């Protein structure tokens, strides 16, 4: 496109086309460079990945256009020369080939685009350790925006650790999930909380005019899960209710306070601060409560009494409820049979 415009431009008068020249240069391929230079993250990996992706997409589009042109020409010949059958077979084969090629190139692009994520995983072990410790230490610095590391290694690993801890809790509590696996439930809960809450809080932060990016939000909330992991790991193994409440208030509270302090330092105005931090604190603390009581031994007894044998699907039930139900049914049938026989 830019080449044709350039050609047009050279055909115009050389003395009059000075302004046009600049504009066309600006609207041509140089735009991509400008966009990439503007990128605030400033990582070379990202730029390379994006460039690569764009070039690939352009190539694909061009190839598909060429393929359709070829088809058009040959279809006409086929209609004249051979029967409808050959044409149909050829079309189907073409479709299959195209679909397969698209799938393969998509898979390859996905694997090649790992490079785009690489800057977010650029950490040293000691940095991760320090950030884990700092996630429990709230800083009382409100006037100046606090720094948030835009990094995803720590949050990802914390989420996977929490998945493992949840699996442990579900197994020891003997939770049975119908129409799903423990693994899927654990992964869904953890990733759902992490991604869902950070996008929700990011949305609220956007409404409250807070200075935070999605990446920073993900990192902040991800490191905030460290407290949850510690509390859950302890309380799934040591069953004291008072211990859980103390840990919930102290460790969970500290990690929540840390996030709240960061958000306060990046928001202006009392009302918006209150809304944003209230939302985050409530969600974070209640999630810990939910995780503790949802997959704990004691909950089995409560479920027994509340729900009884007639439980709807997709709900947690104690392991022996189906057995009890079947035993009861069998015994009633047997006793009825005995009664009928005796009569």
């Amino acid at each position: 496109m830019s080449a044709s415009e350039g050609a047009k431009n050279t055909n115009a008068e050389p003395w009059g086309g000075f302004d046009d020249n600049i504009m066309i240069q600006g609207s041509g391929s140089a735009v991509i460079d400008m966009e990439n230079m503007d990128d605030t993250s400033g990582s070379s990996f990202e730029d390379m990945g994006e460039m690569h992706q764009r070039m690939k997409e352009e190539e694909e589009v061009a190839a598909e256009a060429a393929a359709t042109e070829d088809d058009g020409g040959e279809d006409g010949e086929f209609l004249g020369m051979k029967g409808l059958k050959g044409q149909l077979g050829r079309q189907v084969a073409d479709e299959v080939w195209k679909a397969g090629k698209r799938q393969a190139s998509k898979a390859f692009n996905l694997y090649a685009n790992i490079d785009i994520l690489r800057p977010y995983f650029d950490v040293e072990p000691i940095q991760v350790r320090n950030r884990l410790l700092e996630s429990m230490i709230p800083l009382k610095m409100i006037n100046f925006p606090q720094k948030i590391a835009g990094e995803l290694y720590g949050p990802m690993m914390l989420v996977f650790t929490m998945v493992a801890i949840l699996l442990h809790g579900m197994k020891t509590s003997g939770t049975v999930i119908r129409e799903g696996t423990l693994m899927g439930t654990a992964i869904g809960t953890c990733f759902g909380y992490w991604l869902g809450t950070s996008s929700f809080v990011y949305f609220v932060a956007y409404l409250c005019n807070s200075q935070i990016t999605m990446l920073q939000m993900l990192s902040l909330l991800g490191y905030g899960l460290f407290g949850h992991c510690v509390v859950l790991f302890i309380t799934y193994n040591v069953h004291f209710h008072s211990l859980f409440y103390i840990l919930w208030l102290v460790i969970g509270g500290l990690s929540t306070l840390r996030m709240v302090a960061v958000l306060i330092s990046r928001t202006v105005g009392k009302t918006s601060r209150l809304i944003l931090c209230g939302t985050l604190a409530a969600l974070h603390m209640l999630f810990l409560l939910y995780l503790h009581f949802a997959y704990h031994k004691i909950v089995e007894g409560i479920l027994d009494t509340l729900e009884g044998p007639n439980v709807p699907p997709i709900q947690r039930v104690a392991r022996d409820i189906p057995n009890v139900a079947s035993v009861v049914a069998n015994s009633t049938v047997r006793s009825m049979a005995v009664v009928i026989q005796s009569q």
Partner: protein
Amino acid sequence: MADVEELNKPLFAGLSDVSIADDIPVEGQITVPVNSSSANDEISTLDEPVKDTILRDLKAVGQKFVHVLYPKKSSALLRDWDLWGPLLLCVSLALMLQGGSVDSKDDGGPQFAEVFVIVWFGSIIITVNSKLLGGTISFFQSLCVLGYCILPLTAAMLVCRLVLLSSSGITSFIVRLVVVSASFGWSTFASTAFLADSQPPNRKALAIYPVFLFYFVIGWMILTFSPS
């Protein structure tokens, strides 16, 4: 330059003509190495019996098992990777974990699928993580190493089932705990011996943590297994 090329062309043409015409030793040199290479290097897998092919593959898998059990710094696991061994180990582990809860119907399905999914998706996640941290290892090499390193845990599962057959008390739990923790350590040690070299030296801990978590979850599943 052009002159030289023009001079060369007729020279070569003349040489080839001469060699074809009456140079016998040149012919011999051409034919002999072709014969020897085809006889030694390329064992045609089309002509040999199926038994030989399977036995050869099984032997390769067995050699890799030995590498895992005696993890020294060798690149045999990395050089010619295969996924047969991991599949074998994963299926046998899943079957053994499944066996306990066959009778209760709604519990049996998820168990097999769960083990299978944990093993494969876990190793894929570890691999992607190591790629993201800047590791220089290919995708399937890493999958191969992680899959083969489940071998000690599968052996521990076998031992656990045997122990559970004989008795189920506090002593059997202690025996199982010792066996499972030993094999967990072994698995982690073996996989790090193979994988750690491909990571940048300052980030080994970051790449090893998910491996540790992965084998920990599998080991813990084996430890808490009880045939009901």
